[in-house]
């Protein structure tokens, strides 16, 4: 049995009745990284949020989302809460807005941690500091004392990853974590994710529209267009020779750019 099983997930807008995601099914095994690829508006974020039932109240969903066999869609909000954070963790796109602007980052992290375990405050701080150092934040206490607007996007992303490391969830859902970052930071954060896989053995659902990043990190790829999964398969298969024309279009556009770039730079380089 897979770690995460999604069967016939259907998402629609309760107000207008418009169907956003008609029917999605996929699986995720322990330690695997699944990338969801697609343009803006293809339903990637909705699907992610649906996994943790975090869509706003107007959005409704049906279908089976099973974590280790337990169907999450049947749980009440109260029962769902222990899952969020501890079993399933989310890393958001815009670090600056993910944290409460009126409180230092550290206060927020400690609050989140305190809900999921019986650690003492010093234990939590120690655990967080270790995690933050391991993701490349060299001065954890300074970072924890700062307000979100005083830190850069990359640092905030790493902080979120650090929190995930401490929480050790079964599934990490990363919703376009690198999109809001500059190229250099992007690279570093992606490296963090790759390292993450080795460290805590979580499965990762990685949403992105950047195929280069996907290629680096993912085992399986899900291609979505207009809410529908048009293709899914192993990374090499998708990038090598995909069956659906849309996927081929995505891959080839990216490839064309890459070839051109390599041509200009004069040589072969693996990214």
């Amino acid at each position: 049995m897979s770690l995460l099983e999604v069967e016939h997930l259907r998402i629609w807008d309760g107000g207008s009745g418009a169907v956003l995601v008609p029917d999605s099914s996929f699986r995720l095994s322990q330690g695997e990284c699944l990338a969801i690829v697609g343009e803006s508006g293809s339903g990637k974020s909705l699907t992610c949020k649906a996994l943790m039932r975090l869509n706003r109240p107007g959005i409704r969903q049906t279908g089976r989302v099973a974590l280790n066999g337990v169907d999450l869609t049947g749980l009440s909000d109260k029962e769902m809460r222990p899952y969020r954070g501890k079993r399933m963790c989310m890393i958001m796109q815009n670090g600056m807005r993910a944290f409460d602007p009126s409180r230092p980052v550290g206060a927020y992290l400690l609050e989140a941690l305190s809900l999921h375990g019986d650690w003492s405050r010093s234990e939590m701080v120690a655990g967080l500091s270790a995690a933050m150092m391991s993701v490349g934040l060299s001065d954890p206490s300074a970072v924890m004392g700062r307000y979100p607007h005083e830190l850069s996007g990359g640092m905030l992303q790493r902080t979120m990853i650090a929190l995930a490391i401490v929480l050790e969830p079964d599934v990490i859902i990363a919703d376009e974590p690198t999109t809001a970052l500059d190229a250099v930071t992007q690279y570093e954060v992606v490296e963090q994710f790759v390292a993450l896989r080795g460290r805590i053995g979580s499965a990762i659902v990685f949403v992105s529209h950047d195929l280069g990043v996907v290629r680096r990190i993912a085992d399986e790829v899900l291609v979505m267009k207009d809410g529908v999964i048009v293709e899914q398969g192993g990374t090499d298969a998708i990038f090598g020779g995909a069956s659906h024309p849309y996927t081929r279009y995505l891959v080839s556009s990216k490839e064309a750019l890459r070839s051109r770039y390599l041509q200009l730079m004069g040589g072969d380089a693996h990214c």
Partner: protein
Amino acid sequence: MGLYVLKRVGVLAPLLVVISFLTFTLNGLSPMDPAEVVLHAQGVPSITEELIAATRTELGMDRPLLARYWDWLLASLQLDFGDSYITGKPVWSLLGPALMNTLKLTIVSSLFIIALSIVLGVLCALREGRWLDLSVRGVSFLLTSMPAYWLAALMVWYFAVKLDLLPTSGMDSASSYVLPVAVIVIGYAGIYFRVVRSSMLSNLNEDYVLYGRACGIPERRLTMHVLRNSLQVAVSVFGLAIPIILGSTVVVENIFAWPGLGTLTVTSILGRDFPIIQAYVLVLAVAFVLFNTGSDVLNAAMNPRLRKEL
């Protein structure tokens, strides 16, 4: 933080000087010669040129502008605004008590407004789109489109005449506060409650709420955090509420015969009692600027991001 306060206060001083100067020169706006005005106000029957000139010299109006301004400024700082043209009594003896009365009305009203706005704003934001929200918004919308005196008249008619419950004029007892405060609160709570509500709603839609939920933080805690963030906006608006209400009581005071600033000012305007008008403008402008600064400082204390701007 301290730096910000210093900066703000630093800007304040020159501003106050300019305001005071403008207020002083306000006299010059009048098409009538101030000396003539004095004579008119005192009801002197025949005003001749010599009389005007004599009054001028007597009141020191023929001295250079800056000299007069300086004297006036110094005197004003000691609350000596000159004497009323009409009654001849020192301005402050009339303005002071009136100000106190209006302040009492304003502060009581403001407290109720703030409380009501927060309660209604939070409730409506949390139950957005539902019956409570829609009905409160609809009613408040109508109420803010209503002229205060009309509402006041209605209430006077109903409570005082029909039911004979509450006093409708004067400032005699605690119960005489009820109707004026009610009118003011009804008029203003509508505006401020929407501020609170919108602020809460926009905060509820923010990503940090989503992230908080995703980390498993319970709804109630999240609501508290949202409330704290929303109130920052609200406080900055409330900060200015007091001076605004302070001035807007003019009409309400008139209807309820409240012996306050509004009544005094209207009488002074009708009687062209310039010193009182001048003092009124100065006191209120200064109060306004002070409240503005205070509210900005409070805001910066609560929201660290604002400290960078000036």
